[in-house]
């Protein structure tokens, strides 16, 4: 199969990948762009670990071909807002405070999902957060601490200046 060059933006940087058409966006991010923060779990759209943000919307990067990313703006876990130096971004800080992760495999997908959600809906309530995160499987936490962490990160998104 003829490989195909695809141009898009990742975390604000213009990139191009030259991959087989069947390559998923997840694999292109991990293997070609070395952005291994995006984790691949089930590879068929069930677990949510590979969630990235494409043109502002959280999507499963295993259910999207790299070729379909042409011209889009992709944000991965590596591109989420963070403070100066070693200071964590508001979501990551809140996840640490609330012990919202254990093994951490699902965490990139949960953080990108929560970031997309709070960017669009900074006032999302616990029920909405729970509904949205139903698309992310976590076998460690039991989700309670995850919901608490996302709720607690909302003020940073309600005051947009701090996360832009």
């Amino acid at each position: 199969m003829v490989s195909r060059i695809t141009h898009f933006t990742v975390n604000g940087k213009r990139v191009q990948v030259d991959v087989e058409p069947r390559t998923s966006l997840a694999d292109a991010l991990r293997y070609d762009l070395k952005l291994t923060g995006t984790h691949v779990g089930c590879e068929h759209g069930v677990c949510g670990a590979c969630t990235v943000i494409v043109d502002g919307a959280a999507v499963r990067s295993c259910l999207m071909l790299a070729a379909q990313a042409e011209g889009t703006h992709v944000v991965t876990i590596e591109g989420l807002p963070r403070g100066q130096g070693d200071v964590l971004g508001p979501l990551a800080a809140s996840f640490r405070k609330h012990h919202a992760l254990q093994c951490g495999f699902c965490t990139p997908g949960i953080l990108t999902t929560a970031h997309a959600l709070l960017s669009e809906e900074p006032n999302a309530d616990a029920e909405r957060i729970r509904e949205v995160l139903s698309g992310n499987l976590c076998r460690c936490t039991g989700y309670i601490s995850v919901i608490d962490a996302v709720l607690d990160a909302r003020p940073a998104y309600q005051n947009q200046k701090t996360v832009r």
Partner: protein
Amino acid sequence: MYANDHAEAKSIRVSVDMKPPPFDYARAGSVEEAVALLARHGDDAKIIAGGQSLMPMLAFRMAEPKLLVDIGSITALRSIGIDHRGATLGALVRWRDIERHTALSQAQPLLVEAIKHVAHYQIRNRGTVGGSLAHADPAAEFPGIAVACEAEINVVGLNGPRTILATEFFLDSLTTALVPDEVIVSVRLPPWKPGRCWGFDEFARRRGDFALAGVALFYDREQRRTVEPRVAAIGVGRRPVRLSAVERILLGRVVDPATIREAVAVGTESIDPPGDIHAPGDYRRALLGVLLERALAKAAGLNLSEVA
């Protein structure tokens, strides 16, 4: 040590295995271009839009197309129009577009309610109405709504455009009336009458999973009596089905507890759901009865305790 890891990471690309079978990829700039590509490649080509059904099929190698024709950039297919002829959804309208559309919840309340049950947040951000119709999963919500509402599916092929009634579109599990060179361009739901009574309910083991069974129904009233009842079920057969036996019970009646009990008895008898790893057939039959009862009670504004 880190330098070694990095060197390994660099070399890993050549040996990476991929779940999907190899295929070529073409991006269609227009519907005509997509049709031409389909016509040239026949059964070997498949349309991809949001990819939320096709990508898992490819990962499992349940589909092995030689060519994927991407229609995702034909932006004209992503419009939502509401007028006196009803609501017309372009094939590329995503679930999130329906959720966020301000006028649709008034114009098509049954549709909007059902769409809340479609998969998960991330999938709703990419999944399309055209893809759901073309994929034709018997448990999917949108095909069920299309059948209940007697939607018209507009397609374009080598022989030009044609309109297929949703009630004649779904032939079998994952099988539709589309011929290989046809592309879905839009679907039209007829106008929603003011004051219409309706209900939707489904049950899945986890939120966002495919329903084990689901019911979509509506009817209008003249002097409290039911006219034009429409009742459809998903997940209980090889395609979304109309429960015409239930519609016959409802027609001309007042939907009261006795009518609902009768409708449930007739409805559960009228289907023969297959069993699979998720649930035996008898379970789905019983479940359909419960969902039918709930949806009818909701439509009629009754408490379930009044029905039982």
